[in-house]
């Protein structure tokens, strides 16, 4: 079984047509579906939040069979994720893509669960604590993209479950949970 770092690749990763955009509708639909799934699984396992079309993304090439995705096919697969709400273009020129292997709503729910499980209700955490603190180590929250985290927290704030406030130092913000 082929590996990409510590990520286990599926067998079809060595199937050359997997890397050529298929013109026949039915075949292409299946191909797009498989790519979407693989991108999400891979990003989740490697905690990757952004995929750049012009940067080297290990998943988009397979040196073992000497195949790589064309720019067009990358756009097709990522656009498919975007249209499903599992990803967002980060710029107008569609060069960078934010991959949401959990949706903002899912992240918000995850944070609340985390807060409850750790008895942090009515507690205060800084944003940086959530991303790299001891409390979140080993959870999905460790290493979360700052933008994604802020959006999840704002969603919680709207629901009255959290309050974001400026900390004493300007470069960090605090969150008070009120679950």
């Amino acid at each position, binding site marked *: 079984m*082929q590996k990409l770092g510590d990520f*286990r690749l*599926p*067998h*079809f990763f*060595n*199937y*050359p*047509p997997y*890397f*050529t955009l*298929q*013109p*026949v509708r*039915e*075949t292409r639909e*299946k*191909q797009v*579906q*498989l790519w*979407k*799934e*693989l991108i999400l*699984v891979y990003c989740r396992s490697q905690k990757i939040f952004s995929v750049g079309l012009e940067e080297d993304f290990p998943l988009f090439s397979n040196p*073992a*069979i*000497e*195949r790589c995705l064309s720019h067009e096919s990358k756009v097709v697969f990522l656009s498919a994720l975007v249209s499903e709400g599992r990803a967002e273009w980060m710029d107008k020129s569609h060069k960078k893509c934010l991959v949401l292997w959990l949706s903002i709503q899912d992240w918000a729910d995850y944070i609340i669960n985390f807060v409850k499980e750790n008895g942090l209700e009515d507690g205060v955490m800084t944003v940086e604590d959530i991303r790299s603190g001891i409390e979140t180590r080993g959870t999905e929250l460790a290493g979360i993209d700052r933008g994604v985290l802020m959006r999840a927290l704002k969603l919680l704030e709207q629901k009255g479950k959290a309050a974001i406030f400026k900390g004493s130092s300007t470069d960090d913000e605090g969150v008070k949970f009120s679950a």
Partner: protein
Amino acid sequence: MAAGAWLAPAALTASGRPVLLAGEVERLFLSSVDLEAEENPTLAPLRSGLLALTSHRLLWINEASRSAYSVPLDTVIHAFPPKKSIKNMFASPRVRIQVSASQEGKVGGGRGATSLVITIVLRGGKNDPESFYGRLWEVLKSRSWEVEELKEKENLQMQGLGAGEGPSRVRTAVVGVSGILRKEQEMWESTDKSLQEAFHDLNALMSKAKEMVALAEKMRQKLLSGSAAQANDEELGSKQEMQDWLLSVGIVSPVTKESAGALYHQQLCRQLADFVKLPLEKAGGMIALIDVYCLFNRARGTELISPEDLLQACAIWEKYEVPVMLRKFDSGVMVIQNKAQSDEEIFTKIADLSQKPDSLKMGISPSDAALTLGIAPALAKEHLLNAEGKGLLCRDVSPDGFRFYVNLFKEFDPNDIYLVKDEGLYKAWESTAATVVTS
């Protein structure tokens, strides 16, 4: 059909073209023509058919029922010119011919005791009676049907003492490979004659000397250029063989614009349908239009047609009941295909090929498929693309080229990307492909 019982039936090809006799050449086609026996109303007239004037016969063809009747030209005693009068200006133009008939009034059954006047009514608005009459008269005068008989006799003579002083010959139209052969033969006969004359007396030889030198040179050249072809001249038998062989590739009476006029494309279309039958069989039911163009023109010999004419002729196949069809692939490649030919058969072959271990590993290229299917790579590629469209194959474009793999996408499970079912193509592929990756 009882209506034509007074005329001898004629044979038609599968596409509705007349089957021609040896040496027979088509001269003119006219549509919407009636044949009537005005003096004898008991004979039912033939209505609205296609009239073909050949060097040997007048043929009346009913295209709907695919039946035909013929009037041999050697039975024609006289052809009356079309009448010009005020009255006739409004009626359909008529040309009358007097033919000999048997006692019962049947035409074409040999020299008959009585005669019969057949009225040819030209109902098609564009048909010009004067030109038809002119052409008919020309054909009658040339008496081509006698030439064939004559030649046979001469051939017999030639075996013994060379060509005799046969009566001055009437030429039939020089068209097709047979036309070239005929011309060639006439040339040789005249050469033979000059040889005989030359040896007849020395004076004549002197006068002919110049000619002889030129002739000798020409013969030498011919021997050098094609010794095989020349050797055949030694024995008449093998010469005959070669002629047969040439005739088998040639079309004796190619449809020309001159003979068919407005019906040109229609007749060409039918002739083409008859012609492609054999090459199609050899090519396995499908043949590229370009190849047909080359084969067809080679068979026609001198009367070449343009690609445009060929395309038009193929395009009107749809209208007639012919066993072949023109097919255009999505890529624009055009082929001629047997109607009976089905894609299924080819798909099965392609599916088999794509599941062989080598193909699983490396995919198949159009040339691989061409070898297996026994067809041209360009056509093989079309078949592969078709199979791809059906979901049998999928493509792989890489710096190595354009290849096709058996379609495994159906086997992959997006809900469990690591799943490989124990049986099926995915497993088979996985076990062969794994050896490539690890090696």
